[in-house]
C-alpha cells in the first residue's frame, strides 16, 4: 500500500474516532459512536498490516498475540462487575502505557524498520519524540498500576508521604528532561534505559501520596497521560491516526480531571501534591465530641414518610455502590411509583470513584437515564420536594460548604437536600464523610437518620411499602 493511501486511511481512522466520542453526547447516539470507534480500529489495524512486509513466521506469532489479547480482553469485559469499573480503567491505562514503552524500545533498537535512521543514529527530531513518548508511557504504566492497586484494595488508600518527597520528584523531573535532551548528542543504550527507569520511578512516586478519595481525579489524569503517550509515539512513527487519537484522549482526560477537581472545589495542584483526605485519618481529627440530639428512625417510619409524599429525590453516593444497594433501591422506587410518588435521582459530579460511575451503576439496575439528573439540573427542585432519600452520600449534601469559609469543603457545590421538607439519611453510623466534617443536617428537626447498612435498610423499606 502506498504511503499516501495509508496516510489518508489513517486520517479516516482519526475521523471515525472523533465521531465515536461525538456519539457520547447522548445515550441514543452512543451505541452508533462505539460502532464508529470499532470500525476505525479495524481500519487502522488492516492498513498497518498491509503497509508492512509480512514474514510468514511473524504473521503466525502476530495472530497468536492478537488472539490471546483479544480473548483476555473479551473475558474481562464480560465478567467485570460495574462497581469495579474504576480499577478496570486504571488497569487498562497501565497497558496502554506499557505498550507505548515497548513500541518505543523496539523503535530504538530497530529504527530502520520504522524509517527513523539506524541504530544509535536516529534522526534528532525522532529521538526527542521517542524520548517523550517512552517517558510519558512509563509514567502512565507505573502510575496506573498504583492507582489500580489502591482502587482494588491491594494497597492502602491512605496517602504515603515521606520527607523530601516533592524535592525528589522535582529532581527526577529535571533528570528526565535532561536525559531526553542528552539523547540528542548521545544515543547510548544506558541513557535510554536510565530515562525509562527514572520515568517508571516518578510514575510510582507521584501516585503514592494521593489519597483513595481523590482517585476520580487520578484516573482521569492517567487517562490524559495515556493519550499524550500515544501522541508521543504517533510523532515518532509519523502516524496521523496516533497523533489525532492521542490528542483526543489527552484533552478528554484533562477535561474530566478539571470537572472532578471542580466538583470537589480542589485545585489540580492541590490534588497532585497529595496527602489530603483519607477515609480514616482525616476524620479522626475533626470529629467533635459534643452530643447533639439526633432523630433516628426505622424502616417503617421511612416507608410511611415516602409513601405519603408526592415527590421524592434519591441522592446516591459511593456508599450505595459499596453496599450493592442499587437493585434494592430500584425496587423501592418501583413501589413508590405505584403509589403515585414522583421519584427522581440526583447525582453529584464526584459521587462514585470515577467520573459518571454512579450513572452506570444506576443504569445497570435498570434505572431509566431520563430519571437521573445532574446537580445543576435538579438542585432547584429540592425546595418543592417532600422527601430526600440520601443513601451512602454525606459531604455532597453538607450545607457547611456554603456557610463556613473555614471548612475544608467550603466552596464545593452541594445538593440542596436541606431545602426538602424532610430528609432521610441512610448511614451506618454518625461518622463524618471523607472530608472529616460534621454534617449539621443530621441534627435538624426535619432529618430522620436511618442507621443501617444501605442495602438492608432499603430492602426493609420495600417490605414496609406493601
Amino acid at each position, binding site marked *: 500500500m502506498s504511503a499516501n493511501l495509508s496516510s489518508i486511511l489513517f486520517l479516516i481512522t482519526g475521523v471515525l474516532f472523533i465521531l465515536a466520542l461525538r456519539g457520547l453526547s447522548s445515550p441514543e447516539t452512543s451505541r452508533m*459512536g462505539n460502532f464508529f470507534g470499532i470500525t476505525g480500529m479495524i481500519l487502522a489495524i488492516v492498513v498497518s498490516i498491509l503497509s508492512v512486509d509480512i514474514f510468514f513466521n511473524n504473521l503466525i506469532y502476530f495472530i497468536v498475540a492478537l488472539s490471546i489479547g483479544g480473548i483476555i480482553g*473479551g473475558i474481562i469485559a464480560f465478567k467485570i462487575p460495574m462497581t469495579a469499573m474504576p480499577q478496570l480503567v486504571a488497569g487498562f491505562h497501565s497497558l*496502554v502505557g*506499557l505498550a507505548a514503552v515497548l513500541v518505543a524500545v523496539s523503535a530504538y533498537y530497530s529504527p530502520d524498520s520504522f524509517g527513523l535512521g539506524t541504530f544509535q543514529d536516529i534522526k534528532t527530531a525522532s529521538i526527542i519524540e521517542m524520548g517523550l513518548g517512552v517517558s510519558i508511557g512509563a509514567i502512565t504504566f507505573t502510575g496506573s498500576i498504583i492507582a489500580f492497586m489502591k482502587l482494588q484494595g491491594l494497597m492502602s488508600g491512605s496517602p504515603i508521604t515521606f520527607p523530601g518527597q516533592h524535592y525528589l520528584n522535582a529532581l527526577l523531573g529535571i533528570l528526565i528532561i535532561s536525559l531526553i535532551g542528552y539523547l540528542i548528542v548521545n544515543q547510548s543504550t544506558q541513557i535510554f534505559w536510565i530515562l525509562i527507569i527514572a520515568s517508571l520511578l516518578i510514575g510510582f512516586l507521584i501516585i503514592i501520596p494521593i489519597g483513595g478519595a481523590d482517585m476520580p481525579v487520578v484516573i482521569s489524569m492517567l487517562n490524559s497521560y495515556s493519550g499524550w503517550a500515544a501522541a508521543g509515539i504517533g510523532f515518532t512513527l509519523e502516524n496521523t491516526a496516533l497523533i489525532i487519537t492521542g490528542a483526543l*484522549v489527552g484533552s478528554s482526560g484533562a477535561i474530566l480531571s478539571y470537572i472532578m477537581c471542580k466538583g470537589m472545589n480542589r485545585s489540580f495542584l492541590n490534588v497532585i501534591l497529595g496527602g489530603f483526605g483519607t477515609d480514616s485519618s482525616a476524620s479522626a481529627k475533626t470529629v467533635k465530641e459534643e452530643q447533639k440530639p439526633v432523630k433516628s428512625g426505622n424502616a417503617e417510619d421511612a416507608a410511611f414518610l415516602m409513601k405519603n409524599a408526592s415527590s421524592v429525590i434519591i441522592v446516591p453516593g459511593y456508599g450505595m455502590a459499596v453496599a450493592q444497594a442499587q437493585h434494592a433501591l430500584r425496587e423501592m422506587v418501583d413501589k413508590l411509583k405505584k403509589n403515585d410518588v414522583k421519584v427522581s435521582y440526583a447525582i453529584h459530579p464526584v459521587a462514585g470513584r470515577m467520573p459518571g460511575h454512579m450513572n452506570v451503576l444506576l*443504569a445497570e439496575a435498570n434505572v431509566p437515564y431520563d430519571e437521573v439528573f445532574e446537580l445543576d439540573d435538579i438542585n432547584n427542585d429540592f425546595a418543592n420536594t417532600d422527601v430526600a432519600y440520601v443513601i451512602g452520600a454525606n459531604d455532597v449534601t453538607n450545607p457547611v460548604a456554603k456557610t463556613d469559609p473555614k471548612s475544608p469543603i467550603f466552596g464545593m457545590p452541594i445538593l440542596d437536600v436541606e431545602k426538602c421538607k424532610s430528609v432521610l439519611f441512610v448511614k451506618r453510623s454518625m461518622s463524618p464523610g471523607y472530608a472529616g466534617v460534621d454534617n449539621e443536617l443530621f441534627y435538624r428537626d426535619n432529618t430522620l437518620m436511618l442507621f443501617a447498612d444501605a442495602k438492608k435498610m432499603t430492602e426493609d423499606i420495600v417490605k414496609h411499602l406493601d
Partner: protein
Amino acid sequence: MEIDPFIFRLSIFILSIFIGYFVVWSVTPSLHTPLMSVTNAISSVIIVGAIIASFSSLDGSNISFSNMLGFVAVTLAAINIFGGFLVTQRMLQMYKKKEKKKNK
C-alpha cells in the same frame, strides 16, 4: 523554503486537541464512564506501532528482540481494544429510556 513535515504533524496535533476539547465538553456527564473506557480503547491504536515492531526485520527469517517486544505490545493493545470496546458496549446497552406506559 520547504516546510518540515513535522510542522504539519504538529498542526494536526494542535487542531485535534481543540476538536477533543469541544467534543468532550459536549459529552453528557452521565456517559463519562463510557467516555473513559472508549478513550482507553481508541488510545490502543498504538497497536499500529506494535504491528510495525512485530514485522520489522533485517533478513526476514529470525525473530529479533524488537519483534518480541512487538508481539508483547500487540497482546497488551489487543486486551485493551477488545476489553475497552466490549465493556463500553456492555455499559451503553444498560442505558435505557423510561418505558412508555402501555395504555397510552
